[in-house]
């Protein structure tokens, strides 16, 4: 077909437009990173290089506290979400096609489709009822909410990995006298591991970042790093926030890089 010879990169201005797009995309973030090293407390005037704001951020007790809380929630939620997502991915790729399979896909992806604010309001009411009956006000609410929200994000890379995995390997294991459980433990799970870790990383980043749901679900004194920053910026924007944001960015980039490397890893 003639269309196949169509090469987009031959069009005039292709390279220029690509560069401008990437530049505009990363310009704000670049500005943030640069000004986090500003010696001045100004948002617009450059006063020389300094790491004072980083020092201030690290010394800030509240920042330490909310960061730790964010990590606890993210690790817990990512673990729960990844486990649920792995089970869901196995059920949707390693069983014969069943009635209502499409509905199951839709249900798994529900958090991607329902507006976050609606989920937030719903959880606020739902948890309020439970709080009244149980009296419990701990972190479990946030972990539960984040877990549910992260499932589809963890599900996607795990399912992708399972779909590219040759089912003949599992057949071969069964043929060589492995029980279904042994086949899972010795063949499916080790080969699926990169997908599971990738799913975990993605869920971890999403949990760290979620503001809306956290705002609605958290009890007093349960700020995460994300909601704390939002609260601070409402009052006054300081370069300390820039420094925290830059560190936050670094953590996300790391997690996403790990995710990317794992999902690129070839089978075999």
């Amino acid at each position, binding site marked *: 077909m003639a269309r196949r010879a169509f090469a987009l990169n031959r069009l005039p201005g292709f390279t220029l437009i690509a560069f401008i797009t990437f530049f505009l995309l990363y310009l704000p973030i670049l500005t943030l990173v640069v000004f986090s090293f500003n010696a001045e407390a100004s948002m617009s005037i450059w006063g020389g290089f300094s790491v004072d704001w980083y020092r201030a951020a690290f010394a800030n007790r509240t920042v330490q506290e909310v960061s730790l809380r964010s990590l606890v929630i993210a690790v817990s939620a990512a673990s729960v979400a990844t486990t649920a997502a792995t089970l869901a991915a196995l059920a949707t790729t390693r069983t014969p096609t069943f009635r209502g399979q499409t509905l199951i896909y839709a249900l798994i992806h529900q958090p991607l489709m329902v507006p976050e604010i609606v989920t937030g309001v719903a959880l606020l009411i739902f948890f309020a009822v439970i709080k009244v009956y149980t009296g419990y006000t701990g972190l479990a609410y946030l972990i539960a909410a984040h877990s549910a929200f992260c499932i589809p994000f963890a599900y996607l890379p795990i399912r992708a990995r399972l779909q590219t995995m*040759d089912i*003949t*390997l599992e*057949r*071969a*294991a*069964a*043929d*060589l*006298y*492995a*029980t279904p459980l*042994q086949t899972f433990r*010795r*063949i499916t799970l*080790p*080969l699926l591991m990169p997908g599971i870790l990738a799913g975990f990383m993605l869920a971890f980043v999403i949990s760290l970042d979620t503001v809306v749901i956290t705002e609605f679900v958290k009890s007093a004194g349960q700020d995460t790093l994300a909601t704390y920053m939002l609260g601070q910026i409402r009052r006054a924007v300081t370069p300390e926030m820039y420094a925290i944001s830059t560190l936050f960015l670094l953590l996300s980039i790391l997690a996403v890089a790990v995710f990317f490397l794992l999902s690129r890893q070839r*089978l*075999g």
Partner: protein
Amino acid sequence: MTPNVTQSDIEIIDLSKIFGSGDEAFKAVDHISVHIPDNEFFTLLGPSGCGKTTLLRLIAGFEQPSSGWIKLGGQDITALSPNHRPVNTVFQSYALFPHMSVADNVGFGLRMLGQSRRQIQHTVSEMLALVEMESLASRRPAQISGGQQQRVALARALAPRPRVLLLDEPLSALDLKLRKTMQTELKRLQAETGITFVFVTHDQQEALTLSDQIAVMHNGQILQVGTPQGIYNHPAERFVADFIGDSNFLSATVVQTNGHSAQVQLRSGAAIRASLPSTLAAAVGSSVTVVVRPEQATLADQGVLQGTLEQSLYFGTDTQMQIRLADGELFNLRRQNTIGQPALPAPGAAVQIAIAEGAAQVVRH
């Protein structure tokens, strides 16, 4: 156990496998009954989509039959899951476990059977020696060539000493030269181990070379079971004659029948004797198709068929002549290129064809 039934023979009884349902139902295996004897190299031969791989999977237990039974050494194994069948498979894609070494791949079945470490080590090195792969025991599958992966797949399937080895087109991914070597290897392994091999292929040459018996499959059914010589020399069906080797098909009328053979009159008017398959009842006066292999016909001064030589094709060991018969059909004739043969007639020359005694075969359409 009934006498006469050896320990590792497979009996397939009225087996069917239907995929889908209603209008979309597809009979991959259609009421097949066949007996695969113990310690035999048995080949399922047929074009793609004929059901041979499905039949193999049913024996392995990866698919459940829609109806019918499979017996191994007299024991009904139809309902057993794959891990409970003393049957191992060599997969077309080899299906080696990518995260395990060659040795761990070969030892996998033994570990699952709960054998001791020492026992496993012993069998693994024995198996690796059998397929000449000892030096690569610690490599990963991705680090060895396709031919070597093939050997590892064989060793892995043979290690647990299965009663039956199933081979699903295991040589199709190899290049021609390697395939020839592996054919010899397979034949040797079968003889050395004494394990029943059930081999699936679409390659008729491979089937003829390797098999003790061949079952020719088409549209989910087995058309004919027999030795390579039996299948080649006495095809019972037109499809079998067409699929295996080259064939000339001649229309004829039955003049007289006599148990295993019939006197038939060809369109040229000449009458010849042709073998009659036991499964085919041909009434006197009915029209039938007669098969003649190209190498079983010769040029003669006084033949049973007349025609014009259209062209000769030289193949080195032999020469193929295409002869247009008086009724317009094309007849292929093959002649060995031995020293001292009379010169070939020129294209356009009128020729006569003689058919060797016992070479003609009546087939079902």
